[in-house]
């Protein structure tokens, strides 16, 4: 019997025993094809999916390597059916390729196969047929360039992902160089850039803090063309801009910001997802941006957060080089397949050690405080309409003294109280004698308060959900959430990491959630708990009385 750290389950999950002496070796072996799904304290769960296997294929791994990795590190015999399935799945990638070929004296986009029955099979699909043009020969059909993205999406859905070798337009040339005075790209960053450039399009997976921006800059220096950078929010846009100014030959005049506040289009333009997905009367008003210039490169920051409309837009941009940057390929909405077919396969994955260095493990102490409701409140809750329940539970008056106690406990530490409902926040602010920032707070007032918070003049702020989405939310060591969530669970973990930084003196940051017992509020909390624990955060539940 093998004594490996890995246990292969019949549902295609891989369990990795973290404390095993050979755990790191096994982790490295399975990382190319398996996605980390959960990372609690003892055993990490990876999942083998067709996408993961095709990513590995696109990165040049073959089925044999994958099977070897499993057999070598597995503690028990690996189910034969699973190995066969892996080999079969990997074999599906590359049977179809999209290429540029000369047809009738013109360059045309062609879907070509090495296996005729596969082509026959996919051509029979109702949703693929309209995307296909005339036959070129027995093994190939014409594809209209505008359907390149849709076709790849549909092919992936039917399980025959196409390898896109059709190449890219160069775009409008623009000189960009890395200004490597006093610093250099780290070796793995160079590998990432090369991996992307070689593959043409695709996703680079790097943990936060591992220098994704520099990989982006490196890619731009390779492309030497006008670049559109899509980022999640304006803070990020500013960070990109600063970083590019510092690390490349680009000057301020060459970098434009296209956001809610400013609408500049320059050779390098940084736009937010939000502005692109803004709709007026049902129409996307800022789509022109995508065609405003002959972009040579499109960069997607935080691909795992890419909103659905951007995918639709991206489907039309398949002739341009696309680079996706992210810390994880796992998406809340399950649209990993769209990332794969529209942005491209994974081109580079950082070694785990670097992810660990980023502080994945327990960056904050998460405490869920359960508050019992008074009898009258329970009665009111029981007879309320289902759509009112959440608000009723969230705004329970019993939460207020608990918030007082928590705030008092961390007196002097920078503390944020975060909530969804304004009247509740107002009440808390009054009780605590603190300022409230909501979406309606004037910008000047907001910035003033934030600045005072940063400078340590005030140590407590009450902010609404709207405000916590605002770009310049300062860092704190204590956060108290009284109602609502941070958005998706994925987003929540990210934001949590950003807002709560451990103090330099080693004191841990704290994240409190105040939850009404036995209500939907607690049910939401259970989801959060599971997710945070899976992400490796320490999580505790206490009763308000025991606080």
């Amino acid at each position, binding site marked *: *019997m093998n004594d490996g750290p890995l*246990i*292969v*389950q*019949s*549902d295609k*999950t891989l*369990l990795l*025993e973290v404390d095993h002496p050979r755990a790191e070796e096994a982790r490295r072996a399975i990382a190319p094809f398996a996605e980390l799904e*959960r990372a*609690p*304290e*003892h*055993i990490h*769960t990876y999942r083998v999916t067709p996408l993961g296997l095709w990513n590995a294929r696109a990165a040049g791994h073959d089925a044999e390597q994958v099977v070897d990795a499993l057999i070598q590190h*597995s*503690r*028990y*015999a*690996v*189910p*034969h059916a699973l190995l066969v399935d892996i080999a079969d799945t990997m074999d599906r990638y590359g049977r179809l390729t999209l290429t540029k070929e000369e047809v009738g004296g013109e360059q045309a986009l062609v879907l070509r196969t090495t296996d005729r029955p596969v082509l026959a099979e996919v051509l029979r699909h109702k949703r693929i047929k309209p995307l296909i043009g005339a036959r070129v020969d027995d093994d190939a059909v014409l594809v209209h360039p505008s359907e390149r993205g849709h076709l790849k999406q549909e092919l992936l859905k039917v399980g025959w992902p196409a390898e896109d070798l059709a190449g890219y337009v160069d775009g409008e040339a623009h000189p960009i160089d890395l200004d490597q005075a006093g610093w250099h790209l780290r070796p793995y960053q160079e590998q990432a850039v090369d991996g992307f450039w070689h593959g043409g399009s695709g996703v680079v997976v790097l943990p936060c803090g591992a220098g994704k921006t520099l990989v982006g800059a490196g890619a731009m220096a390779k492309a030497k063309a006008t670049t559109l950078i899509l980022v999640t929010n304006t803070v990020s846009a500013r960070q990109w801009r600063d970083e590019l100014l510092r690390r490349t030959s680009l000057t301020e005049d060459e970098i434009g910001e296209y956001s809610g506040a400013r609408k500049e289009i320059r050779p390098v333009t940084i736009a937010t997802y939000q502005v692109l997905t803004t709709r007026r009367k049902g129409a996307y008003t800022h789509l022109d941006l995508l065609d405003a210039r002959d972009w040579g490169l499109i960069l997607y920051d935080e691909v795992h957060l890419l909103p659905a409309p951007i995918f639709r837009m991206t489907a039309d941009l398949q002739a341009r080089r696309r680079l996706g940057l992210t810390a994880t390929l796992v998406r809340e909405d399950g649209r990993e397949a769209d990332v794969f077919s529209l942005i491209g396969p994974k081109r580079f994955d950082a070694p785990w050690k670097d992810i660990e260095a980023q502080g994945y493990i327990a960056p904050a102490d998460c405490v869920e405080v*359960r508050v019992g409701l008074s009898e009258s409140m329970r009665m009111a809750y029981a007879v309320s309409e289902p759509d009112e329940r959440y608000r009723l539970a969230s705004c329970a008056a019993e939460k207020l003294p608990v918030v007082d106690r928590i705030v008092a406990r961390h007196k002097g530490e920078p503390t944020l109280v975060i909530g969804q409902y304004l009247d509740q926040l107002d009440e808390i602010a009054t009780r605590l004698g603190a300022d409230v920032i909501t979406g309606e707070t004037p910008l000047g007032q907001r910035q003033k308060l934030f600045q005072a918070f940063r400078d340590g003049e005030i140590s407590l702020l009450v902010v609404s959900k709207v405000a916590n989405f605002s770009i310049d939310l300062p860092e704190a060591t204590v956060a108290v959430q009284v109602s609502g969530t941070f958005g998706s669970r994925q987003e929540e973990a990210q934001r949590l990491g950003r807002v709560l930084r451990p103090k330099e003196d080693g004191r841990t940051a704290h994240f409190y959630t105040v939850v009404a017992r*036995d209500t939907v509020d607690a049910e939401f909390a259970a989801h959060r*708990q*599971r997710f945070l*624990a*899976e992400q490796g955060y*320490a*999580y*505790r*539940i*206490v009763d308000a009385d025991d606080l």
Partner: protein
Amino acid sequence: MPSPLRSLADDIRQRSDAQLADLVRRRPDLARPAPADLTALASRASTRASVQRAVDALDRGRLQVLESVVWLAAPATAASVAPLAAAGEAEVVPALEDLWAAALLWRSPEGLVPVRTAGEVLGPIAGLGPTWFELGERSGIADPEQIRAALAQAPEAARAIARRLTWGPPSGSVGDGPLSAAEGVAAEGARWLVGHGLAVVTGASEITLPGEVGLALRDGLLHRSAELHAPRVQTRALDADLADRVAGGQVTELIGLVDELAASWGVQSPRVLRTGGLAVRDQRLLAALLDVEPDRAAFVAELAYAAGLVDDDGALDPVWAPTAAYDDWESEPGSIQWARLARAWLASTRAPHLVGRPVEGGTGSANALGPDVVWPPIRSLRRAILDELESLPEGASPSREGLIERLRWRHPRRLPVTVEDLVAVVLREAEWLGITGRGALSRAGRALLDGSEGAELAATMQPHLPAPVEHVLLQGDLTAIAPGPLTGRLAQFMRLVADIESRGGATVYRFRAETIRRALDAGWSADQILDGLRDGSQTPVPQPLDYLVRDAARRHGQTRVGAAAAYIRSDDEAALGAMEAARELAPLQLRRIAPTVLVTNVHPQTALELLRDNGFAPVLESAAGGVVVPPPTAHRALTRRRHSDLLHHQVDEGYAASLVTALRAADEEEQARAEHTADTPEETDPITVLALLREAAAERHGVWVGYSNNLGQVRRMLFYPERVEGGRAHGVVDGTRQTLSVHRITGAALD
């Protein structure tokens, strides 16, 4: 000439004890029930049923040799058989020896003679037509040289027909009308063949190529290809250790599935269908629970049933539930568990693959655990397939086609037509059971086939099963992971307090409020659950889990549900107290469940009357809470429909006439029966009747038989039997062809 039966008997009598022992081992049906003496053994050995079994068990090589011997129709020797079988003498000798050892041949001084029934059982030899003799033609050409010479001069059409009929079927039609009138080249050719004594007319436009002619055209070879030796099977060589390891992995999973099934059915037992079996819906639920394909779920259920681990509980409203045997099984180590399952599978006549397929000759599809899944041939087929695997070297994984080819050679007469499908099914099940690993027989599987059982068999599997673990790892995301198979008690406990989320080498359990509640419902307290977790875990209990358990316990049992037949409520708590205390009301067995509520298990009406009798003044309350006013008390019976007394005892003319006719007919029949039974032959034992008929058929004698018709009347008639087969005697009575069922022959005597 001594009668043939006696000669086989002589041969058998002369065999040594070892040879006789060998014979009954080859043909077990001769030994059970034990025959009275060797003569009885010999006659049983030549019965059609027994010979059929013996012939069906022959491989293609032996069968070809036997066919050659039967074809010769004369005492055979290796020298006379070898040319027919296209083999050297030395090659056919072992086959002849085997056939003799199985008493399908006996030794006469001139050579080996087949038992008479062998010819009947075999039917047309190698697809050749009947011989001239059998066709009743004396003038046909029998000498191969002459036949070939005659045919050499035949017109092309005649030769084409002869070629078509050479390798069978030996008969063919030309056109629709009589041959003499048919036109065209083919008819000409056919007429030429008949005219030159190379074929006979056997139907309106049908001609048959006699066996001698066919054989001559086959250049004297009985079979197109001689297959005295088993075909080689394409195999893939596998590391034998790997096969064992893979098998071990499969076994771990299988045992987990059986456990899961029993655990689930112990709590929520699925109903037994009225027709027996498990409802399709329950099978789907099981598949979802086990997270496997429905096929496999059916297999697991059938296997557990075959091994006696689950059964119909026999209650009035029966359900499928784990048996007491399951409890024993569950506490055994994995290897013993496997041994029990594997042996049960090997011996079972149930064919799980039939689940969900249409029932043959019925409507709908077969239900798992139902009676339609019983298909006895599957047992010998399993054995046959595994025996082929066993004949291969260790670690050899055969190609499916090769295996089927080999099986067809080994059991040419016994394989069902769907053999491809069945081989796939059996191999799949063997793989699931760890009898094979990646298609190669595992060492444990080999031991199973060798007949090992119990601890000895278990020991062969044991090294390949993961060592059982006695702990789980508890994690902050409310999961627990057992990094190997859990042993008995902890496994039960974990299954109670958590759901299984993923299965395989390890088991991932997930705790949820519902699962904790389940444990609380089962009578565990929060502290007991936490203690159980602490004992079973190598890591401390994470705080969220601790909280989850305590939180679930806090809410558990806050409200209670019970049954009562009636309640008594009153705002006057003192009055209720008085009722509770009153001795006269003791029969009500009142119980106070709240200050203002008493309950009793007595019917409300009775309670009401008893209370009234004792000076209380209760009123009846309706379900809606209102007071029930009793209906007027005067009693009325229901109006019933009465029988009409018309139309009775009327006998009209038509009815009388038909009655008389029927009576008269019955009377006449009675008389006729009395007349006919007068001179029928004495009652004879059916075995004797059969022997008599066979003998008469061979010698072309007439037999007086008593034969009962559909009405049970026995008639006497003179019957000329021609052949006896399948319980029927075909022959001639009063110049007309008739087929008599042997079981209706009450007696027989030679003419």
